[in-house]
């Protein structure tokens, strides 16, 4: 299951370490994503990239 980090965080869920910055995509099992989503660190809804990020990506 995929999700997007809402804010910068470090987490250990079921022995796996997640280090994410805001906007990072992460993939894990549904339970782990559910736990991170429940405490407001990630969202499974599609996140619109910040304008600056999109512009930088377009230039790549």
């Amino acid at each position, binding site marked *: 299951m995929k999700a997007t980090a809402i804010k910068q965080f470090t987490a250990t869920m079921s022995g796996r*370490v997640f280090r994410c910055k805001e906007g990072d995509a992460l993939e894990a099992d549904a339970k782990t994503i*559910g736990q991170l989503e*429940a405490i407001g*660190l990630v969202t499974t809804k599609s996140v619109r990239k910040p304008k600056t990020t999109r512009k930088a990506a377009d230039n790549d």
Partner: protein
Amino acid sequence: MINTSIGLIGVALQADKATAASAPEYVHGLTGGQVFKLDRTVESDDVSCGVRAGTDSHIESIVPGADFDTYGYADALPEYFYGAMGSIASAASSETGYYDHTITLGDLLPYFTVWGRIGGEYTKVAGCKVSELEMEFEGNSPLQFGVTMLGIAATMGLASIPGSIDPSCFDGYYIPTGGTFKIDTASGTPAVAPVTKGSLTLDNACSAIALAGQVTPGDIEEGKLTSSGSVTVKPDDLTLYKKMVTGSGSGTTPTGVMVYGSFEWTFTHSKDSKCALVVSATNVPFTADFPEVDPAGGAAEIEFSFDNIGVAEAAGSPVTITVTNKVEEYVS
């Protein structure tokens, strides 16, 4: 002489089971208990050998660990909660320089190395897991914690606790004073109530795995997490009791349908107003005795107790603990 007033404990998260930490990440004081414990089982050999007495004994097993009581020190506390629950997530708090650590149920428990000091004696136990973590509060007394750890490898006769970290005991601890205490016995949304005391025990039912030819454990394995405890209230009326028994504050007859309640305790810190500790649960199967008559009088107290908080969804956690402190993260 071993001066029992000189006690200290150090703890560090291990990278894995086999790799003991080299020095503590946190060092703090304690209010009692044992910084080093050996559950040593000695069995007498049942042999008849021509005399009316036994002959030998043998050591069946040795399980090292630590079993101590302490206050809630802001930096070390999330480490123990993480050890008891299994998952931790850290993110910047709304206050600059402070971080929120949210601890929830995880499938695996981490390993710790624990150093102890009593008088001039120093010890170390590696490969520890948190078997049981108890917390309790009453009135304005500092929040009390009891930590029981089981480990794999024990060492005595150390020259000191390695490293040069200042003990956390000089930086204050979590207290109920100025905190907020909420409970509801029939919903997941607790409300402020006249709570007098409370307790929570997180029991992982850890056991030491004995291997043939080895007296110390091959591993420490955790079982099912049981979250039990109580919230004691001096209520103005029987609403909380009626909600628990009937499902509604205006109910009149007991229901056979299980009614789940919730609680949320917010603690403050004795020296840092930006540090906080929040303990909450939203699927609590409360039970309580109807208050007793007392000819001497006084307000009735009702103790709402719970034996085993379950989860309402796959990603749920029986208890959620959020600690705000100055430590950025606990995962190395």
